């Protein structure tokens, strides 16, 4: 009896696995950071903090970390201590579910929560220099660590993010998946299409001549297909980020990286 049942069960699980892989081309293919697609000069710039322009943002962020501010006159360091320890691995698992709010928060939103509630200071505008500086400094503490994105409470958000990733957008009527899952490695005009992983953000982009957030990158792709981008703090942006982090789970964090 067992002899008959076992192969059937095995076959069923093999088929189920094949189904899972077929449904997620991004998982079956080997994952490749955008770093791999860059020329050697830009790669060297990312590898050496003395050459990486994002270091300027990191240094400012480090200053902010230690500065007492707000009505509470507390610094981040007063509560979290040395960022090297207190913030180690944090960026690698954001966006994270906030049980009190019952929804996920991005790293930037989490930082602003501490700003407003713990420091009693004004929130930093999303994507302002101050926010990008603090975020770069916090994200640096996860460099080299694998992305972790598996909280079951984020499942519905991840599913929504995946649906957005597969939805055709804009006047050019293209989905993220059509470029980043199905055509990664080919050239759009002169530009190699990367797999579209979020592991380097915030990062310094030569084209921007500044550090920018993942959201800024996603909005660039959206306007590229002539779509109306989602607002900076829209829940759709968080859902997309959660899906991208899950899709890149296990990949090493590079923040703050450099891209052309």
């Amino acid at each position, binding site marked *: 009896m067992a002899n008959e049942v076992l192969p059937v069960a095995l076959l069923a699980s093999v088929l189920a696995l094949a189904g899972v892989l077929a449904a997620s081309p991004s998982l079956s293919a080997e994952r490749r950071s955008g770093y791999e697609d860059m020329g050697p000069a830009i790669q060297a710039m990312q590898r050496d903090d003395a050459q990486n322009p994002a270091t300027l943002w990191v240094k400012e962020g480090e200053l902010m970390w230690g500065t007492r501010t707000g009505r509470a006159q507390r610094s981040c360091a007063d509560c979290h201590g040395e960022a090297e320890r207190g913030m180690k691995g944090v960026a690698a698992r954001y966006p994270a579910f906030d049980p009190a709010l019952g929804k996920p928060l991005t790293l930037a939103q989490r930082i602003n929560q501490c700003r407003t509630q713990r420091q009693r200071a004004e929130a930093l505008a999303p994507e302002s220099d101050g926010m990008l500086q603090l975020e770069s400094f916090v994200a640096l503490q996860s460099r080299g660590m694998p992305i972790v994105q598996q909280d079951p409470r984020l499942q519905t958000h991840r599913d929504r993010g995946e649906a957005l990733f597969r939805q055709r957008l804009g006047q050019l009527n293209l989905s993220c998946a059509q470029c980043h899952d199905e055509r990664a490695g080919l050239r759009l*005009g002169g530009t190699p299409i990367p797999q579209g992983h979020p592991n380097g953000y915030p990062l310094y982009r030569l084209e921007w001549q500044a550090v920018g957030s993942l959201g800024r990158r996603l909005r660039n792709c959206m306007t590229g297909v002539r779509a109306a981008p989602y607002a900076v703090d829209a829940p759709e942006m968080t859902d997309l980020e959660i899906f991208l982090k899950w899709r890149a789970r296990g990949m090493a964090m590079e923040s703050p990286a450099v891209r052309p």
Partner: protein
Amino acid sequence: MTGAMAASLGAAFALLLAPGGAAAQQADEPGDPARGRAIVASRQAGLCLLCHAAPIAEERFQGNLAPDLAGAGKRWSEGELRLRMMDAAAFNPDTIMPSYARTEGFNRVAPALAGKPLLTPRQIEDVVAYLRTLQ
């Protein structure tokens, strides 16, 4: 009947059934190949070189997501090329080539472009005339 012929007949049929179909949108003047070439070369207007290569040597950055346009005029008739421009999905439902004539049925189009096609019927005729020269 060849596969290509069947496909283009199917496409013609689909366009006839669509509101404001091919005949209604076509410009009446013949296209100008020189203007068509400029549209194909332009990253703002045609966007063709994002995906295609074409024998336009001065444009160095050409894509490789789609067949080289060299020889397109040998492979396809004027009618087939026009249909391709207006509704590439009629040839291949999963195509990534955008419709240059469609004005609705998109998600989240940038407000400034809402209700506008990628190219005017006139521009489409110019592009078709240029593609026909690619023998």
